[in-house]
């Protein structure tokens, strides 16, 4: 067992745990960061979506040993800080459109949306319905219609 060190939401953390434990459990069960949710553990529901160095990823399917010392993990809790505000524009858009129902999938949805907008821009276009169709996050409450609208609104302010 060794100590793993990396950055979560702007703070350096040191965790002593077996190297193959997936990062989701390190975040949730060891560090008490509960924004990323569990919904499948096999990278298909996307409820745990967070960012690594600014890109969306699913910590349920990454071993803590594969996180390097300089890697910056951002969970929903740390998203506002990335823009130096109380809320990220995507969170504002989510509130504006009153997207959440039970709310369980929403941290993951927002993290996915932010990354998807950035990805589209990196490819030189604004987010489209086709890009949104690529988002794999499940919402069992069926908030997709509002998610679609909120992503487009949030993107405008990003």
């Amino acid at each position, binding site marked *: 067992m060794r100590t793993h060190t990396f950055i979560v939401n702007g703070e350096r953390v040191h965790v002593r745990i077996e190297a193959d434990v997936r990062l989701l459990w390190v975040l949730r069960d060891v560090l008490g960061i509960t924004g990323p949710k569990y919904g499948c553990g096999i990278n298909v*529901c996307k409820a745990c979506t967070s960012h690594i160095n600014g890109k969306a990823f699913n910590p349920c399917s990454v071993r803590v040993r594969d996180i390097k010392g300089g890697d910056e993990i951002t969970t929903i809790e740390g998203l506002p800080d990335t823009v130096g505000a109380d809320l990220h524009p995507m969170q504002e858009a989510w509130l504006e459109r009153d997207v*959440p129902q039970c709310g369980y999938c929403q941290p993951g949805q927002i993290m996915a949306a932010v990354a998807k907008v950035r990805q589209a821009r990196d490819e030189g276009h604004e987010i489209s319905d086709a890009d949104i169709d690529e988002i794999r996050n499940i919402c069992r409450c069926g908030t997709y219609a509002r998610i*679609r609208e909120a992503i487009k609104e949030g993107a405008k302010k990003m």
Partner: protein
Amino acid sequence: MEHRGSSEKPSSENTPHEPGRNVGRRRFLGYLVAAPTLAVAAQLGDSATAPSAASAVIPSAPEQQEIYDLNDLLTLAAKPTSNLIAVVINSDGTASFDMPRAESGQGVTTMAAMLIAEELDLPLDKINVTLADARPELLFNQFTGASNTTIAMYEPIRTAAAIAREQLLGAAAVRFSVTVDRLSVRGGVVYAPDGRTTRYGELAVRAASRRTREVDVTLKDSSEFTVIGTPRNRIDARDAVTGRKTFAMDRGVPDALPTMICRPPTIKGAPRSFANADEVRQMPGVTHVAQLATGIAVRAKTFGQCIDAVNALDVTWNPGTVDTESDDTVLAKLREAEADFGLAPGGEVIEGDFVFHFRNNAALEPNTAVADVRPDRAEIWAPLQAPILCKEQVAEQLGLPLDAVTVHVEQAGGAFGRRMFNDVVLEATEASRKMGRPVKLMWHRTDECRQGRTHPMCTSRIRATYSGDNVLSFEQLHTSVATDYTQGFGEIITAKAGQLPPNGMSNEENFAKPVFNATVNVPYHFGKVSHALEETYTYDTFPTGSVRNLVNPDVRTAQELIVDQLAATMGKDPYEFRREFIDDDRLRAVLDTVAKEGDWGREMAPGTAQGITVHKEYKGATACLIEIDCRDETVNREIRAAVTGPRVTKAIMAVDAGLAINPRGLEAQMQGGIMDGIAQALTSSLHLRDGVLLEGSWDDYFYTRLWNAPFETRVIVMPPTTGEPGGAGELGVPAAMAAVACAYARATGTVPTTFPINHGTLSFTPKPTVPPLPPSPTNGLEFTY
């Protein structure tokens, strides 16, 4: 502005308002409760409304659902009990309400806050709504189901808040030495005529009662509403979007370590023995291993380590209840149980025969319960739709007196019927007792798919007869795998009927059939209308339950497909035909609305089509217009590791909930209902093979995803009609599912007879059953974007 009579003089208001009961004139009874600050209680339970009659074509006699629907039963069940709920005014000027219902995303906490805000004249953000612990004294009134919450809470919450307002004003009047009628209130601030002000917070102690006594009050007339009926955002939205909203699995109960269960390879199997307990106990992070009734529980430092340990266990299993059953054997059994059609009154015949496969009722948050069992007491934290029953079951399991068990109700990450059953809590308490430690027990997603509860597989057959322009008869025979009513849902019905079935023997006669008849109806004047349910297997053969409504999504889909065929045979347009035969004015209004808003009848490309349907239930009416694209290039579009198929491109729903307390919340419920309807019509089912449900996670259980969701989803909330709120949580599903099916039939020219329509193709490789859990991948970083 004072608009209500005090408890001594009758209200001077008698302006009638919306159709239905004039709430402004009735007096409602509540209680001032002896407490340090002002606390007002009111009794749960409400009154029934009579449905309006309609006239057209050959009238059908009213069906049971119309006279006495399930909500009336649920509400009546509550009547004779003493069911007090209380609104408390705090010294900081806020109001608190501990709600004896589950919040699973359906928005009932926001609804409750709005009712309080309305009657109390206090801003919404000053109202805290929490979920009450299990309160056995509420008897049957702490049960969340059948979209009943709003219907049951509407008057009691307002009554308590209205009395609180009067008491606060009374205290202010004393303080300012003026009469109450000269005071006014805005946003929790009381104004005297001379400009002096005081806040609710300052009056909370003064207005408190030293003894508990009865008072009565009149409620605001609907014409005075400023909060009810206006769109409001959810009170917990900010917590949800910041990740602060906590669920049972986020609950930091000291020492309640992650715990998971190694489950049997087939449905309802049970562990006989296991060989390597010591070895598994030595695995990284693992603290305890214990055999439970349903499997082998492992407690570890992280859930990841639980998964590894569960998969390492060497368990010998006893067979399950359905090891020899598969989709086709169940279908054969259903066919055997099917009743014969009665004598039809002559005319031409149209028949339909539809099969609806098993589907899963899991929410996104898996079953989770935290349990801390001590020798003399137990404490539980879990999302529960039937917390009182849970408390009773835990006390019974542990041999503890009822008051030694505390059950905290957590916010649920979705429910859809799943959390009526307390399976996970009983496992958690058993594990905690055997391990001597608190546990946070969570079902793995794969457990949810394979050992969770399913919507019962069923067939629905219809025979309709017609002559000329008239439909003479419409008979529906529904045959279903038995539904388990032994928990929650059933308890209420039983309480009303006063007949507890011994060991669930009367599950079918005393629960399933009455509920079927209380929920099903044919909303058209089709002459001689009848419907009946037969069940096969016993209620505990398959683990079953409702999935955001029980029978109506299937029953109504079957009906509406036949309605389209009747229309086609008579050479009529599906919309015009429905319009002509519909038996309810509210239903006709929502139908007209979707037809207009959705541009019914517009020209559509070949392979694409519209479908239009209606549904009434929960004192509400809905209509849905769907546009679907079944062209090859759409059906065969490629998305990595995904099922695509026909795509619903547009969904328009109109909803008349009687009175929409929060139109925005109602809109959300309807949108969710549309997504469920799409899933159930097109993609979402479980395949049963030799006692195993082949689906094992969200990659093979195909709930609607963004790539299958409509580009345009529009919900039109109708203005108040009855003035009485109806239920919403499950209301949207039937019309949506039926409209997708009808649109599909019109686009392809083939009437689907098996649901979901893609059930016949197994489009994935089933995950192994031993070891039971799919290991977490390690290549997550290859998919970053």
